[in-house]
C-alpha cells in the first residue's frame, strides 16, 4: 500500500536571475514502514525533497500525497530531524521534547502520561542520564539523539531526517545508526533519510533513492536493498551482496553523475554551500578507499 507519493514534483526558487528550477519531475512512492535513503551530490536537491514532504516548501508543479491527503503545510505527523539538531538552546533536553509532546498530545494525554512518554522517548535514544541538561551542555551526538527523540515523541506517520548523523564522528555515528535500526524495527516507522554516507545508506535502508545532479534534479535510480534484518555491520562488511550494493551506489555517484563543478549551480547560500561541500569531500573520498577492489575506483578517485 502506498503511504507517501510524490508525483511529478517540480520546484522553482526565485533568484535574482529569475526562477531557478531545483527539482523537476520527481516521482516516488514509499510504503508504510519503509526506510528510504536519499543520496546524491551536494546541492542536487535532497533537502528540497525533504522540505517538500515536510510541507516547508511548496511544489511549483505536482504534489505530495500522504495517506491520500495532499501535503499543504508543515505538521507534526511529518516529524523532521534537522541536520543541525535544531534544539531550542534555552530549553533542556526534557523541555525540548516536552514542547513537541505538549503540542501533539495536549488533548489526548494527561500530564503524567506526557511525562512518562517524554521520558520513554529519551530513554529510547539513551539520554535518560541528561534529561535536564541544555543543548550547550551536551555533546553533538547527544544533541542529535535528543532531536531524534523529539521527532519520535511526536509519533509521526513519517520521519524525515536530513543528514542526521552528518556532523558526528564515525564511532558515534555507528552507535546512533544501530539505535535507529533498533527503534525502527520496534516502531516500524516510515523513514526518509538523507545521507552522504554510502555505508549508512546501504546498512539502514530498504531502498536507496539516488538523485541526479541539479539543476532540475530528479530521481536517477532506485536501488532495493534486499538484506535481511536485523543487520549487523561487522557481518555485512564481508557480505557479497552488501558490497555489491555499495558498488552500485558508488558507481552511480561517481560514474553516472559527475560531481558538479562548484559555482555552476546557482547556489542561494554560496558560502555555506561551499563550506559544506568541502566537508563532504573527504567523506566521499573515504568511502572510496574502502572499496579497493571495485572497478569504479579509478574513475571515482579522479572524480573525488
Amino acid at each position, binding site marked *: 500500500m502506498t503511504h507517501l507519493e510524490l508525483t511529478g514534483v517540480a520546484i522553482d526558487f526565485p533568484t535574482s536571475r529569475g526562477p531557478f528550477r531545483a527539482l523537476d519531475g520527481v516521482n516516488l512512492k514509499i510504503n508504510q514502514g519503509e526506510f528510504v535513503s536519499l543520496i546524491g551530490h551536494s546541492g542536487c536537491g535532497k533537502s528540497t525533497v525533504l522540505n517538500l514532504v515536510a510541507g*516547508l516548501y511548496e511544489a511549483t508543479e505536482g504534489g505530495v500525497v500522504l495517506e491520500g491527503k495532499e501535503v499543504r503545510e*508543515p505538521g507534526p505527523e511529518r516529524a523532521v530531524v*534537522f541536520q543541525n539538531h*535544531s534544539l*531550542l*538552546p*534555552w530549553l533542556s533536553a526534557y523541555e525540548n521534547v516536552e*514542547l513537541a509532546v505538549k503540542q501533539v498530545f495536549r488533548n489526548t494525554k494527561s500530564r503524567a502520561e506526557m511525562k512518562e512518554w517524554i521520558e520513554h522517548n529519551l530513554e529510547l535514544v539513551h539520554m535518560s542520564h541528561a534529561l535536564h541538561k*541544555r543543548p*550547550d551542555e551536551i555533546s553533538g551526538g547527544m544533541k542529535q539523539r535528543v532531536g531524534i527523540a523529539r521527532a519520535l515523541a511526536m509519533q509521526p506517520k513519517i520521519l524525515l531526517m536530513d543528514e542526521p548523523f552528518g556532523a558526528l564522528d564515525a564511532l558515534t555515528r555507528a552507535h546512533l545508526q544501530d539505535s535507529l535500526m533498533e527503534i525502527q524495527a520496534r516502531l516500524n516507522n516510515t523513514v526518509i533519510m538523507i545521507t552522504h554516507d554510502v555505508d549508512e545508506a546501504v546498512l539502514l535502508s530498504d531502498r536507496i533513492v539516488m538523485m541526479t545532479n541539479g539543476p532540475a534534479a530528479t530521481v536517477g535510480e532506485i536501488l532495493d536493498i534486499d538484506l535481511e534484518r536485523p543487520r549487523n555491520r561487522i557481518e555485512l562488511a564481508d557480505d557479497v551482496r552488501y558490497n555489491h550494493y555499495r558498488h552500485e551506489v558508488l558507481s552511480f555517484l561517481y560514474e553516472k553523475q559527475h560531481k558538479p563543478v562548484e559555482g555552476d549551480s546557482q547556489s542561494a547560500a554560496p558560502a555555506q554551500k561551499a563550506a559544506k561541500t568541502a566537508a563532504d569531500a573527504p567523506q566521499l573520498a573515504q568511502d572510496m578507499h574502502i572499496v579497493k577492489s571495485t572497478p569504479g575506483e579509478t574513475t571515482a578517485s579522479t572524480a573525488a
Partner: protein
Amino acid sequence: MSTLSTASTESTKNKLTLGRLQLALRTPSADTVSRIARALMLPLIGLLVFLFAWHIAARNIDTSLGQFPGPAQVYEQTFGLIADHNRERGREAAFMERQEKRNAAILAKDPGAEVRMRDYTGKPTFIDQIGTSLITVLAGFALATLIAIPLGILIGLNGTLYAALNPLIQLFKPVSPLAWLPLVTMVVSALYVSDEPMFAKSFITSLITVSLCSLWPTLINTAVGVSSISQDLKNVSKVLRLPFMTHVIKIAIPASIPAMFTGLRLSLGIAWMVLIAAEMLAQNPGLGKFVWDEFQNGSSDSLGRIMVAVLVIGIIGFMLDRAMQLLQSRISWDKNAVVR
C-alpha cells in the same frame, strides 16, 4: 649516575608536591596578584590623574560666578547639599509637629471640629530632586518598554508590519526631546484635566517625553532580534504547528533576549539623558531643574553645586546601566554570554 638520577627524581617529586600544595591552598600566584593590581591600580591612577588635571584646570578658569569649581569645592558642596537636605527635613518635621499639636488642642476644646493636616511646602532639596528624577525616568522607561517590546516582537514576526512601520520608526527615531517637549506639554495640558490629579502635569509631561525618545532602540533591537531567529528554529515551530502565543513565548522572546537587552540598555541611557534636558527646559521638578535653578541663582556656590549635580547624573546613569546589566545576566538563558 645513580645518585644524580635519584636527586632529579627527588626534585621532581618535590615540585609535584609543591604544585599540589599550591593547588590545595589556592595560593594566588604572582600572575593573579599582578592581574588584580592592574585591575585596581590602572583605574585608580586614571582617576588621580583626572582629579589633578581638573584641579589645575579649574584654578585657571575664571567665570563671572567666580572660579570654576575644583575637586575640593565639589567635595565641600556635596556635604553642603546633604546638610541642606537634613535641615529642610528637620523643618518639615517641626512643621508637622506644630500642626499636630495645634490640631490636638482644637480637638481638645471641641471634639467635633474638623481638623486638617496641610502638607509642608518647602523648597525641594537636591536629594528630593534626585528622587523625583529617578522616579520619572523609571516610569518613562517602563512605559517605553511596555510599548516597545510587544510592538517590536510583532514587527519582528511580521514582515508586512515591518515594511509598513519601518519608515515611521526611522523618521521618529532621531527626533530630539526638545522638539517633542512643547507638543507634549500642550497635549498634556489639554487632555490631562482632572480636579484631583493623581500625578502632577509636569510629571506626565516629562514621562511622555522620556518615553517618546527612549522607546526606539528597544523597539528596533527587539524587532531585529525577533526577525533574525534562525530558519531552523522557525521550521521547528512550523512543524510543531505552535500557536502564535506559544511561538512568541517559547521561541521569539528567548531568542531575542540578548538583542532586546542591548536595546533596553540604550533606551535607559537615552531616557536618563533626555529627562535631564526636558527638566531643564520645561522647569519640571528634577535634577535638570536643580541645575537650571542654580545657574539662574548665580551665587558663588552655584558652579560647585552644578558640578555635584553633573557627577551625580553621571553616577546614576552608570548605576542604571549596571542594574540593567545585572538584570540581563539574571534573565538571560545563556549564562556563558559575556555581558558588557
